[in-house]
């Protein structure tokens, strides 16, 4: 444990700044939030982008923009600061750039400020406020300085939150449910049973995620309920609750069958529907998996690596049900909600070390020295002696009873396979 003593335990972490690197030299490290902010914005129909920053940010952004879904009808331009603007600010240049894009017909513009304009304190909100009355395009902005975080998730959730600023108050339509975190054409990700059932019952599901139309965001305030299935979407749902009184239910962070029961019941209540016995079979399977897990997983010490995309604190809280003990958790991002999860963990006496992993080769021996019984996420460059629950990204977009069964069975299968291969 000596090699992780420089890390903090989750109870003492209040923000991204508290998440220290496991080892010091980043290779390859993590993407900056510009990448995700731009990838998200350029996949929204009608959304043009203006990246404000250095040549590095701009040149890299060309790779992201190349995959823009609606590039024929949108503009993806860059504003590069010169040495004068680094000292005196880039306000005039950015305003001129916005006007130029407006003149070229941009419908909506997301202005993405990267590290340098954020360090020099450029007041982008002031700029937007000043220029909005002069242009037709709807303007939004995000500050994407990488020095405020370790990795890319804020590029998603802050950008989505910024889309919220464009929303317009509408009358509630009790037949519409917003699904926050699923795209309209995610054919490669199975549709969760809950959403299929809502469709069967005649609800219109408005998917809010990359590949949505900007008009979907603007008019999303007519929904009866927001169902959140991605950690990136909680801040937007929270904002819509406060600003437009649309209740939300976060499904992505609930694994416990009894809690899922309660969540599904709330959905019934809000939407004035009854599931009848639609989920009984799935529920029974999940309960059986939990019973088996109680026998097999008790007392196991585990870690979570950078290859685990599941937010680790909510997962750790659930795994405590089986007396599993987290010893070190990689955190891609300390989300606004994570304070609440850290507190919940502290209340049940769980306080693992947390870190950000940036170098597979250097991190692997440190992780193996901890001698965990299990790793959530692969340990690349490791020796294979730690059983790893792999391909966890397959859980992305999944919710409910079926996800609980899937997760627990995968954990138990991983342990079984490792044992069969001669592991402990």
């Amino acid at each position, binding site marked *: 444990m000596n090699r992780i003593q420089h890390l903090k335990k989750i109870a003492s972490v209040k923000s991204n700044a508290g998440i220290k690197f496991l080892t010091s030299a980043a290779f390859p490290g993590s993407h900056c939030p510009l990448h995700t902010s731009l990838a998200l914005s350029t996949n929204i129909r009608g959304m043009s982008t203006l990246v404000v920053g250095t*040549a590095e940010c701009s040149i890299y952004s060309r790779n992201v923009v190349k995959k823009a879904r609606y590039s024929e009808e949108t503009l993806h331009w860059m504003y590069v600061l010169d040495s004068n603007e680094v000292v005196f600010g880039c306000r005039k240049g950015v305003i001129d750039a916005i006007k130029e894009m407006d003149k070229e017909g941009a419908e909506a513009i997301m202005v993405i400020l990267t590290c340098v304009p954020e360090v020099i304190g450029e007041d982008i909100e002031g700029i937007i406020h000043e220029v909005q009355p002069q242009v037709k395009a709807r303007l939004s902005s995000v500050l994407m300085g990488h020095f405020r975080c370790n990795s890319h998730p804020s590029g998603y959730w802050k950008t989505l939150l910024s889309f919220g600023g464009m929303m317009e108050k509408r009358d509630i339509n009790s037949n519409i449910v917003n699904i926050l975190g699923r795209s309209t054409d995610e054919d490669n990700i199975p549709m969760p049973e809950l959403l299929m059932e809502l469709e069967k019952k005649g609800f219109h599901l408005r998917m809010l995620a990359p590949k949505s139309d900007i008009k979907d965001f603007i008019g999303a305030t007519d929904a009866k309920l927001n169902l959140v299935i991605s950690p990136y979407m909680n801040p937007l749902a929270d904002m819509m609750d406060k600003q437009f009184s649309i209740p939300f239910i976060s499904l992505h962070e609930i694994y416990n069958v009894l809690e899922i029961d309660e969540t599904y019941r709330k959905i019934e209540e809000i939407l004035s529907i009854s599931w009848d016995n639609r989920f009984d079979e799935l529920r029974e399977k999940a309960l059986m998996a939990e019973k088996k897990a109680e026998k097999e997983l008790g007392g196991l010490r585990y870690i979570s690596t950078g290859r685990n995309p599941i937010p680790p604190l909510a997962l750790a809280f659930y795994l405590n049900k089986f007396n599993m003990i987290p010893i070190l958790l990689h955190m891609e991002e300390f989300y606004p909600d994570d304070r609440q999860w850290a507190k919940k963990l502290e209340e049940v006496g769980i306080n693992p070390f947390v870190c950000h992993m940036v170098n597979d080769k250097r991190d692997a021996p440190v992780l193996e020295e901890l001698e965990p019984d299990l790793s959530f996420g692969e340990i690349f460059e490791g020796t294979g002696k730690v059983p790893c629950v792999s391909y966890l990204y397959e859980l992305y977009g999944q919710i409910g009873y079926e996800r609980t069964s899937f997760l627990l069975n995968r954990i138990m299968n991983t342990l079984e396979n490792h044992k069969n291969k001669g592991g402990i």
Partner: protein
Amino acid sequence: MGLHRFSPPLSGRMGILRTLAPIRDSAIIEYGCMGHMMYGRMFLNRAGVSGMAKTYSTHIDEADISLGDTTRLNRAIAEIVEKDKPKVIFLLPSSVPQVIGTDLPAICKELQPEYPDIPLIPFGYGGFDVFGYRGVQEALLLLVKTLPIDIEKSKQKTFNIIGSCADLFRFQADADELIRIMEGSFGITPTCVMTSHTNVDDIWNMGNASINLVIRREGIPAAEYLQERFGIPYLVGRPYGIKGTIKWIEDIEKILNIPSNIEFIKSEEEIAKNQTLPTIPFFKHIFRSHPEEGTICLGGHADVVKGILTYATEEMMFNKGPCWCDSSDMSSEEIPYLTEEEWTAIIKSNKKSLLMASGEALEWGGGNLSLQISNPDTKWRLNPYLSPFVGFRGALNLIDLWLNAALDQDHD
């Protein structure tokens, strides 16, 4: 720099990184936000520069910025020295440390005594008014000022190539062709090909060479320094075309004062001429009856554009169309620097001409992508063994490209 619809010019920082990244046995640490090096490495991977210098980032956070705390850098250096044991560590500033004025030279000076066997070399030219080619120039100069050891001239003549860097399109293939020609013409091998085919030892030993071949103008200050310190003469130029390549060999012959291998040169010339011969009637027809299609437009590094233009117009009788370079520092009357608005207008109004430019420009203009001669690129380039543009093989490659591009046009 202002508003851009296409990739803006490289920063000096990016020029430095692209110069240092191919140097094996070295480590590069960029002090700053991780995304910076992530993006830099992405370009290098795409350009086929992987696993050469070890490239790391330290990352920085708000506390580091507000307190000026650089201990992340100290920790990263210690870890890299312990695990990688590089022969030299290059330190690069990224944009935020540049803004807040982090003093990398002072940090290196302070830490150097802890690592007496591993030079810590800080690079400057990270400012916001310095473009990529200036970064290349300064990196080449700092390398030759800091690394070469005092050494006697090699008994067997050798040469250095200065300026084969990852920022130029198809840089590896061009360097390979020059090495092949030097071996064929003079029977000599390189000490150091700076920096595409090199390691730290090669740079240490480059003072033993008999001639420095400077293949882009950014290498001149480095060559001048080496001439002053080691007495190594240098030749500036990129050999394009058959005559141009023979002239280049003759210039080297004069400097080295050794006879070239006439048989090798004649054989190369004959192969090129024989291959070209059947195409001559077609090209003559194009130049006479379709002068617009017989016009060549070029955009890219000034030395590349100049070299290909000379070959195309003097050896092949193409008409010179609008040509431009991609750096305001290199702008001239013959090959001016053009803004996005200017070069896009040229592409729009010269649809019938042969356009050789960056991948980005060709893609935007709907041009023939096989005619790419410069960056920004839009593709991955994992294969370093493609045909060059320089030398005898480059001459044949260019004719092949021009011929097929012209045939693709609809002629009577």
